[in-house]
């Protein structure tokens, strides 16, 4: 962006869109397991993610931009997850929250757990932890914002 002396801003349409998108990522209320409680904590009093424009948790996939896969994805749940992802409108993003979602986590010796949600849907940001703290999830959302603005994450 360049600031003109006469008090107006010039930018490209693309930059403006990215700026808007990155500051209004509406997550999808999609709690699966333990991490969902930490996702609720991220939304609640102390770690208020509305500071980053993501406070509007939508209950319908058709109104949301971001799917935070929070909790173990089982083989029974995976087809439903894929379907919910397909119902979301473009542009859409996925955050894999917790080690269960990344690679099976503590349950990866079991028979009913999907070894990573990236086998089902494409993932933008991985947030490790079991469960990740709300601070970690907030950092994940900020990384996603950087990614949307095509900046290198720090």
């Amino acid at each position, binding site marked *: 962006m360049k600031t003109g002396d006469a008090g107006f801003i010039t930018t490209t349409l693309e930059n403006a869109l990215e700026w808007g998108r990155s500051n209004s990522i509406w997550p999808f*209320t*999609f*709690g*699966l*397991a*333990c991490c*969902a*409680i*930490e996702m*609720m*904590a991220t939304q*609640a*009093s*102390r770690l208020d993610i509305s500071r980053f424009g993501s406070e509007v948790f939508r*209950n319908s*996939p058709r109104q949301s931009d971001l799917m935070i896969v929070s*909790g*173990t994805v*089982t083989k*029974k*749940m995976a087809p*439903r997850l894929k379907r*919910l992802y397909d119902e979301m409108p473009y542009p859409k993003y996925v955050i894999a929250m917790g080690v269960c979602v990344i690679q099976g986590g*503590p*349950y990866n*010796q*079991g*028979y*009913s*757990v999907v070894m990573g949600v990236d086998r089902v849907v494409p993932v933008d940001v991985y947030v490790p932890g*079991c*469960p990740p*703290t709300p601070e970690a999830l907030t950092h994940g959302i900020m990384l996603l914002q950087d990614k949307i603005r095509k900046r290198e994450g720090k």
Partner: protein
Amino acid sequence: MEGQLNSRYVELNMGPQHPSTHGVLRLKLLLDGETVKNVEPVIGYLHRNAEKICELDYYCDSLIYFDRMDYVAAMNMEVGYLEAAEKLLAIEPPERVKWIRVIMAELNRLASHLVWAGAFGLDLGMITPFFYFFEEREKILNLFTEICGSRQETNYMSIGGVYQDFNDKIIFKIKQFLKQFPKKMEGAYSLFIKNDIFLSRTKGIGILEPEVALSYGVTGPMLRASGVPYDVRKDAPYLVYDKLNFDIPISKGKDVLARCIVRFEEMRQSVKILNQALDKIPDGPYFNPKAKKSLMIRLRGEGDVYARTESPKGEFGVHLVGDGTVKPYRLHVRSPAFKNLSVLPFLSRDVLIADMVAISGSIDLVFGEVDR
């Protein structure tokens, strides 16, 4: 009804993705207009085979899977497992450890009920209480972080002891927390109990008769809200609950409102227990030398034990069978939330869909525990 058009009843799926099903419950509703004629809960969307994995691990390793069963009350799950494991392995924890465990379990009971209260408010369309309850819960989790280094899935206790000892600073901080907690809790509680909309949505909804509750195996606050004073902490005391003075809150209301009142009363009782326990906590070692870290994986158990404890959801039982090796032969969990869920079809016959949400919210379901 084969080959016939049946337009009277409509089948509706609620979940597995639904904000009011507390996770991944799917309810198959049979509707007549807005009235629910039949409900069929479909579970298994979070089946993580924790019991089976525990059988592949050493006795001391199973704790992390118990943390993640009832993931909002990790400490209570750990206490439940250790009651069984210590009985099987014949390791008695020192006196101080028992008091520490009671303190941690009661703190986590508070945290669990706070999560329930926040989520229940959300189910009924009240967003404000959620923030108040989660603020208090954050304070408890801060204490946990300081004591065990982890917020939610703590993995604090171990066979024959705990991971780290309490010091005076921690006890002081818990006391500080308990000083301000009742006032904050009552304030948020009044948002529930003085709200006409809340009362009209919960009073007389989801009546559960005590005979029905007993025949379905319902325990915990749900049973006590039906007027049956059954609490494992009183009826079969474990740890040091017999040395503490507290009451079992019951209500004669039998409805959703009664369950809400009983849970809040339980929180008051937990505060009472915590205040006593913090004063009475004795000095001593914080682990049994028979189960120190280097010996932990060599512990062998033989026999067959069943231990029950009172988790925030109800009676939590662990059945453990050992065959003389370092790993359990069989581990089975009696999950209170699963038994409480089984009464849902009975509770929600001929109610409106909106009341259905209130009823399923009042059960306090946690799917890590239902599906395991």
